[in-house]
């Protein structure tokens, strides 16, 4: 099939799904579930099949003219396909996991429709080659995230979801002001024509504020730990996919298009380093398992920024690999937490313990994913962390590096503590059961893939290397 058609399919399939899912629900619940998973699979297949044409150096572009230079341009290149493949894969895992997990609650149709909308707008976001459309999809992900985070309808949950949307829209508006500055400065928002241009410092700072609000980096990190109270599938979707939307925007805007002003790297790295350290500290003392994992995601995102912003090729490759490894591991961790919560009816780690005996598969998946996040060889997480630090040592400020080293140490500590308190020690919960087959498949798959990626690190490395060489700007 023509790669432009594949590109259009990747964006259109989930968006059409938003309307198909409620219709399928009228037929039967099974039809709706099948429809949701099928749409996820189609999207993933489309994105994955674009990987190899991109490595051959092909590009695919589809555009519709809009007035005032707001053209709707979809463009596939190495970076967008890489991110789209990761996002759609994680979404498929979450959809499969949700089939069982979510079947006990109300508003299921809305849940699936919103996941489809979320996935569709995510695809739109990564493939947009026009900053305005990037912003539009950016806001649609926020709306879908808002409905998903407000899945439970108690006052507290709705208030948390509203808080999340307000933070996201605030970030989005900052970004929009930055985009308008670029528009009045350069006269176009088409990223294909802006490559290598120097961005005004104020616009760069505003875009960065928007990115940090999305990626839950300090000082905008509070929404993620609140939103973690939503169902586990949503937690995983927000912590892995939504947060990485911010990371993608950084990689796209500052890594692949604009030349950044001097000192910009420092402006990124200081908040990122602080959030890596502070969130890790928070994860060490927090008692709610989902909040711990949310803090962990905030902390790990800091490391991704370290890789992308250090301004050298090794670190940039490390950052890209980090996105891949962290998505797999964090997805598995969140989904494990969902199984634990559902089977024991508590999220408080002080009231959990000794689950290893009754939930061995969950424990194994949790352990594998934790080891990857800690960065223990031969897991995938080791290589990415190693490359990020290796590259960053050449450029970054020693103080900033110290922040990150401490953060990495704390990562080890909080994950070890979490695993010990939940799975080892004395049994405190009455009759916990292992999760169902579908849910276990949902946690094992990403955990094992994390291990497999470590063994086959050569292939993602080659891809990331090509990506950095062809698209990277601001790299030594």
């Amino acid at each position, binding site marked *: 099939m023509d790669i432009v058609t594949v590109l259009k399919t990747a964006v259109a399939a989930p968006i059409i799904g938003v309307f198909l899912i409620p219709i399928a629900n009228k037929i039967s619940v099974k039809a709706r579930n099948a429809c949701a998973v099928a749409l996820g699979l189609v999207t993933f297949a489309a994105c994955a099949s674009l990987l190899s044409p991109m490595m051959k150096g092909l590009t695919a572009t589809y555009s*519709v*003219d*809009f*007035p*005032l230079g707001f053209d709707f341009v979809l463009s596939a290149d190495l970076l967008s396909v890489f991110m789209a493949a990761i996002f759609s894969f994680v979404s498929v895992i979450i959809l499969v996991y949700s089939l069982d997990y979510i079947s006990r609650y109300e508003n299921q149709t809305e849940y699936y429709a919103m996941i489809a909308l979320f996935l569709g707008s995510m695809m739109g976001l990564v493939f947009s080659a026009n900053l305005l459309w990037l*912003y*539009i999809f950016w*806001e*649609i992900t926020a*709306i879908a995230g808002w409905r998903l985070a*407000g899945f439970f*309808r*108690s*006052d507290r949950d*709705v*208030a948390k979801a*509203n808080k999340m*949307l*307000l933070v996201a*829209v*605030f970030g989005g*508006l900052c970004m*929009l*002001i930055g985009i*308008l500055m670029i*528009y*009045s400065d350069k006269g176009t928002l088409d990223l294909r024509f802006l490559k290598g241009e120097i961005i005004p410092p104020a616009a760069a700072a505003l875009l960065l504020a928007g990115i940090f609000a999305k990626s839950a980096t300090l000082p905008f990190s509070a929404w993620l730990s609140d939103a973690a109270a939503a169902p586990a599938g949503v937690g995983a979707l927000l912590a892995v996919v939504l947060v990485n939307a911010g990371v993608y925007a950084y990689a796209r805007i500052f890594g692949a298009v604009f030349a950044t002003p001097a000192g910009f790297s420092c402006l990124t790295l200081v908040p990122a380093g602080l959030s890596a350290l502070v969130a890790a500290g928070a994860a060490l003392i927090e008692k709610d398992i989902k909040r711990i994992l949310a803090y962990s995601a905030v902390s790990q995102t800091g490391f991704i920024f370290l890789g992308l912003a250090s301004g050298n090729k090794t670190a940039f490759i490390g950052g890209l690999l980090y996105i891949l490894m962290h998505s797999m591991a964090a997805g598995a961790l969140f989904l494990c937490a969902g199984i634990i919560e559902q089977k024991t009816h508590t999220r408080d780690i002080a009231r959990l313990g000794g689950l290893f005996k009754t939930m061995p598969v969950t424990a194994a998946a949790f352990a594998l994913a934790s080891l990857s996040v800690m960065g223990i060889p031969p897991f995938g997480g080791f290589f990415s962390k190693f490359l990020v630090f290796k590259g960053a040592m050449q450029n970054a400020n020693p103080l900033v590096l110290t922040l990150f080293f401490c953060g990495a140490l704390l990562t080890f500590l909080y994950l070890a503590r979490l695993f010990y308190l939940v799975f080892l020690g004395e049994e405190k919960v009455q009759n916990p059961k292992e999760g169902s087959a579908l849910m276990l498949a949902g946690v094992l798959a990403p955990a094992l893939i994390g291990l497999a990626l470590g063994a086959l690190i050569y292939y993602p490395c080659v891809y990331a290397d090509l990506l950095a060489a062809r698209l990277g700007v601001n790299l030594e």
Partner: protein
Amino acid sequence: MTSDTGLLAYLLIPLFTAVLLPFVARRRPGFSASLANVTLLAGLLNIGYALLNPASLAASFADIKEDGFSLLMIFLIYLVALAVTFFSAWYLEGRPNRAAYYSLILTSVSAMCGAVTTGDFFTLYIFVEALALTCAALITADDSAAGLEGALKYFLLTWPASLLILFGIAFLLLTAGTLSFENLKAIIASGRPAGAVVFAVSLILLGFLVKSGVVPFHAWLPDAYQGACAPVSAYLAAVVTNISGVYAVIRIAMLLRLFEIKSYHTSGLLMFAGMLSIMVGALAALRQKEFKRMLAFSSISQTGYIALAAGLGTPLAILGAVFHLVNHAVFNTVLFLNSAGLEKAAGAGDMRRLGGMEHAMPWTSWTSIIALMSAAGIPPLAGFWSKLIIILALWDGGAKVYAVPALLFSLVTLAYLLAMQKKIFFGKATEASAASREARPALLVPVAALSVLIIALGAFFPYVFSYLLETIAARILL
């Protein structure tokens, strides 16, 4: 058919039906609703066809010197009026005096059509006053004392505006000797001293600002909306205030632009009042407990965006103002009609007594989510594009000081609308809401149709934009 009679038909036919209604409906009271709906639907289809076929538009309305602005406004008037009468047909079923109610609506439609098609200030004034009278009578259609109170407030608080307009017109006649837009343009173009003319036009502008409820002249608006019965308040908020105030403000802003530097202060003050409205309206809406009052303050805030853009006066800004006017009318109709449906279903407009309505009323909940997202300027809905054009125009026009807060205040808009959605539709069901059921399908039709319109105007933005550009902005350039 000549052009004048072509446009006059939109004015005369509803007036004719309005006169006919009380006689026809004497025997069968239910017939009045159908007749009003059919009249408005026919008008809407007619104007809709004319708008969608610009070629036939140019042929049959060759004499329209101005632009497509008037035609767009006629379309809007018919659209909202039809939504309201269709809704009322079921909402007011069984009430007495229905024939009078529909007569008044049709009369006000014809008054509004007169106001938007006229080419001089005096006729505009006459039609706007006729509109004010019919609307005061409409507000009393709510049988309770609140209706009478609202009507009196509406009339007494807006009559100083009429006085200002009348003074302005007198002064204009003294200084310029003409009241027609075309002649005024010619006078300005001839380069005669314009100070006195600017003053007279400013007086008229001030009057219309009071009528559009821009801060600091907004005191009458929440009371009037709250006092009226639900569909009437939708009608007032969505189209009457827009036509009797905001439309004229945009028209005058188009004129003011021609004065260039001489009208600098007037334009500056208009922008300032617009910004003030955005801020005061949004902040006051945050504190409201009553659904309709909150929506009233929200309208004040949205009107602020239009006034801000009109004050800037560049073609792009005027285009944005007109587009936002259309969007404002559409999402306001949806929100107000939903509030009416809620009131009918749960018997309460107080947000503290409602909760968890989404299960009982899923359609009402989703349509109001769409409308509020459009109001808050969330892409890709229609409201996003109009706000974006306004902000872009402000930025390009050198008014960055206004552009940034105007943008950030859409966050406040989102905040109060989310709080509303949370209190009314999400959360636990209260006593009042547990017993309620979804409004009848017939009541949902106008709301659902307008929600589709919100999405469509956003999705087909390129067409909307080029249409507005050709019919409105291109003509302002002179």
